[in-house]
């Protein structure tokens, strides 16, 4: 059985990756699973310099989901290159760095530095974070700007360039086509949906930032729809995510048109879920007599 998939020039041993911001730098999961079994691992967002993120509270539980407003807390790309990269570079899975920023220049600067790291075969350009005041999602909701930042990063980054799309848009396909045209090797979607939670008793917002990003099973129907729409209108591979909790969910994304999937929030509830999904995909393939996982991509039967 062949579980491998290609994302641009990047070959993954299987289609199951972890989503940025939900898997730390992988190290935190070493007690729970063998990271080398993963198709890939997208590490926490990296920005040009240190960010403290937003004030506590940064989290609200919602029906079948959660809101977060972490806000890209990280110690900056220099720290990543110096301290974290050496520790994780030999984890033996495709390590993808989630590149974030507030300005076009910041994206370019981070991408340039990551380009130098031998064991980082790809970046995921995060133009869809709803939790930063400037930049983030703003880049991902306007096709022209999305294309501009993609093109600029493309110039300096020579390995696989994945661009992560925001679902907070009228037309995901318009953005997708713009980003593809600007040189993206692959698209990943969806980032979180902008939401809000209120404590009716205290009459206050739950999050310090009032709004935050919604993730988890609640958003799966929207994510599936966007992956389906997008994969039909671009030629580059699509990486699907949004509410994947188990094998069935992952298969649904593949059928809808995804070449690989990322698992996010589910890792918090079941830290070993990704390796369970890999095994689950294998037995699904056996049951359905599918030899290569690539056959599942876009195999949805629409009469």
């Amino acid at each position, binding site marked *: 059985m062949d579980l491998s998939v290609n994302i641009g020039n990047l070959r993954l041993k299987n289609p199951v990756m972890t989503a940025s911001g939900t*898997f*730390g730098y992988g190290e935190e999961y070493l007690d729970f699973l063998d990271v080398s079994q993963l198709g890939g691992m997208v590490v926490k967002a990296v920005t040009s310099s240190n960010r403290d993120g937003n*004030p506590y509270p*940064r*989290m609200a539980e919602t029906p079948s989901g*959660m809101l*977060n407003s972490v806000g890209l*807390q990280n110690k900056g790309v220099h720290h990543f290159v110096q301290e974290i990269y050496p520790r994780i570079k030999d984890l033996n899975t495709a390590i993808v760095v989630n590149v974030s920023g507030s300005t076009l220049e910041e994206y370019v600067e981070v991408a340039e530095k990551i380009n130098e790291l031998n064991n980082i075969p790809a970046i995921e350009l995060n133009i869809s974070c709803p939790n930063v005041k400037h930049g983030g999602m703003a880049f991902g909701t306007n096709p022209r700007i999305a294309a501009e930042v993609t093109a600029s990063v493309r110039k300096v980054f020579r390995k696989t360039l994945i661009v992560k799309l925001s679902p907070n848009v009228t037309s995901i396909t318009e953005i997708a086509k713009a980003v593809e045209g600007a040189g993206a090797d692959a698209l990943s979607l969806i980032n979180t949906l902008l939401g809000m939670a209120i404590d009716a008793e205290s009459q206050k917002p739950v999050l310090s930032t009032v709004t935050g990003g919604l993730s988890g099973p609640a958003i799966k129907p929207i994510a599936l729809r966007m992956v389906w729409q997008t994969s039909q209108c671009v030629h580059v591979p699509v990486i699907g995510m949004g509410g994947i909790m188990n094998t069935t969910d992952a298969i649904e994304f593949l059928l809808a048109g995804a070449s690989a999937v990322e698992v996010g*929030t589910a890792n918090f509830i079941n830290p*070993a879920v990704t390796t369970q999904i890999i095994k689950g995909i294998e037995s699904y393939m056996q049951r359905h007599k599918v030899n290569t996982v690539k056959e599942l991509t876009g195999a949805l039967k629409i009469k």
Partner: protein
Amino acid sequence: MSKVETTRIPEKKLIQDFTVIQNIRLNARHFILELQSPDQLPGLFPGQFVQVLVEHSPSTFLRRPFSIHEVNKENRSIRLLIQIKGHGTETLSHIHILDKLNLIYPLGNFFTTGDCKKVLLAGGGCGVAPLLFLAQELNKKGIRPIILTGWKTKADIFEAEKYQQYGELLITTEDGSEGEKGLVTQHSIFRKEKLDFERIYCCGPDPMMKAIGKISKTHGIDCEVSLENTMACGFGVCLCCVTPTIHGNQRVCTEGPVFNTNEL
């Protein structure tokens, strides 16, 4: 004496199905679950917590964190003291003996022990949860602490005999129906000219921890508090549980839940 414990290498975190072997109702809003592991328990330290998967509660999506209340190594069991707050804890309160409960544990750092002799444990309401385990560990090191607990009213008090076993129990109630009247922080012990504790351990509502922290500072006493920020993961990856410290935002689930008030 050096801070021996804090340099211990943390044990591997486990995901494990425990069996519910006791579900003891203490009063309308509190209960104790005793949970047995299929395997030997790893090293556990007072202040550490577990993340419980609550099944059968449609409105509980994430795991729920609870401090380790007691440990029984021989029986491979731990106890959790739980206050019913919302749907998650409500659902747990109805769990049956022999049902399984999935835990991620051991999580978080722990109280410093072994370097002080004269210590005070202060807890408000359900904040007493980690203090019983702490008192027991202190006893093992030959230290009999003073344990100060605060309650709304006499009827709310539970496990008093247990605490008395491991230390000198002081009580405050808001209505004065038992012990001294008032809040924990208003207990006469704090009105002494000079408090002679080497350390105060504290766990309870935020305002109480703030007040105790202040008292400690005034008297130059070392003070460790256990925070209860809301958590999504509990093992350091989501960055949702942070608290501002002198070292910047730190994760309550990993750098905490126990913090020295000097650092906050």
